[in-house]
């Protein structure tokens, strides 16, 4: 990042905090509705000190990674299958588009009925929220592969199975990585949402505890953590991968 960009960012966030502190000092709203930045930082420090925050983050991220892994594996298989077999696309493909329009949180009642108030239920919501984004992007990616890659590979003797692993997935990877990124975003929303409704651990649960205890600063602290993880994964992890892929695949 250029230093001028960094300076702008720091300035912007500093301004938010100053305005926030100013609004708090103006005493327009009571402290139990509108906490000061210091209250929130104290709350975060408290969470760090007794490690409850790390435990919450760890739990949410563990559920997320299991759910997302399932979504990625399933989405890749489904997407490739749809792209390669027209009948599958015409049948399952239309269903996938429909299912994609269901918000992950709407799967929660079904998850509770099927899995009870368990981790499996949360993982189910996370996975199902992410799988269709991975599927659709994989499908689009495989459909958009330069046909001469496939012809060249066939020509050199690649069988269908070899074609999938050595050509289809790598050739479609710029799309697939967008699928992972979208999938992650859906999974992250899904896991927090599900935890909020029926979990005893995780960031979503901590949010809910904050609400029950009328602890606004905890609610805001956890929201900041959720956002921070989002920025970290999107802006650092995925950005790095995307940059590398785009360059190597000659897309920029």
């Amino acid at each position, binding site marked *: 990042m250029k230093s001028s960009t960094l300076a702008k960012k720091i300035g912007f966030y500093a301004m938010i905090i100053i305005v926030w502190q100013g609004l708090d000092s103006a005493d327009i709203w009571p402290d139990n509705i509108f906490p000061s930045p210091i209250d929130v930082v104290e709350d975060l420090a408290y969470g760090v000190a007794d490690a409850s925050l790390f435990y919450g983050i760890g739990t949410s991220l563990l559920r997320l990674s299991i759910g997302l892994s399932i979504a990625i594996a399933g989405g890749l298989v489904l997407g490739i299958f749809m792209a390669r077999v027209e009948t599958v696309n015409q049948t399952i493909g239309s269903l996938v588009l429909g299912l994609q329009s269901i918000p992950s949180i709407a799967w929660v009642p079904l998850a509770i009925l099927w899995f009870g108030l368990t981790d499996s239920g949360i993982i189910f919501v996370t996975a199902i929220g992410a799988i269709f984004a991975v599927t659709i992007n994989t499908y689009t990616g495989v459909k958009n592969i*330069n046909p*001469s*890659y496939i*012809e*060249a*590979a*066939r*020509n*050199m*003797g*690649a*069988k269908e199975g*070899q074609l999938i692993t*050595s*050509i289809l997935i*790598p*050739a479609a*990877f710029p799309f697939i990585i967008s699928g992972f990124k979208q999938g992650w975003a859906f999974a992250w929303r899904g896991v927090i949402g599900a935890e909020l409704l029926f979990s005893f651990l995780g960031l979503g649960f901590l949010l809910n505890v904050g609400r029950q205890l009328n602890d606004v600063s905890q609610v805001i602290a956890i929201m900041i953590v959720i956002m921070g993880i989002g920025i970290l994964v999107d802006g650092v992890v995925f950005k790095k991968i995307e940059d590398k892929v785009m*360059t*190597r*695949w*000659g897309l920029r």
Partner: protein
Amino acid sequence: MGKLESRNIEKYFTHDGKPLKTLDGINVNVEDGEFVCIVGPSGCGKSTFLRITAGLEKPDDGEILLDNQPVNNTGPDRIMVFQEGALFPWLNVRDNVEYGLKIAGVSQEKRNEISNRYLDMMQLTQFATSYTYQLSTGMKQRVAIARALVMEPDVLLMDEPFAALDPQTRDLLLVEMQLIWQKTKKTIVFVTHNVAEAVMLGTRVLVFTHRPARIKKEIKIDYRRPRVAEDENLLKYQKKILAELRPEVKK
């Protein structure tokens, strides 16, 4: 009976819902070690013929024989070099070149040994770990040729591989291609719309007619090698071919 034989190949495409005859009974007999160039007006079906030979498309009639055996599918015995190279951008130069060996289950050690030989032949050794986005168009085509040679095919099929190159790079590769052919003694079928290119490379040039394509004329080119672009003696061959080709292009 030659190495590669096409018997009465016919091909139709659908155009505005009507069948459009593209190849009208193509009979070609390519001897072992020959370098056959096919020229024709653009859109005449010469690339289609090459793709049928490679097994990438099916003819509507006729057959392709390799060593007197009919072939219906793609196979590593007939390797195609595509116009745009079709290199895999996610692999570096060496892995691109070794791709066919890898999927055939050749051991890493053996793969390296073979690819080293062809990387060297194509003067790519120092680019072995480069990715395609780091290569010029000419370099990419060198990689594409190396990738094809590594397969040690019976027949090398080349579909306008130098069409996108600048003239200097092309002239260089045209000379090198002759040396490679002399060194490897490969049977090559080379499609181009560039008459000068055909004359430089071919032992024989086939002129295709406008669609539906037939073989209009066959011109043997008995001339010493390596032939260079500025050799005026090659002009008379070019003139001969152009005389056949010009009326077809105007159609």
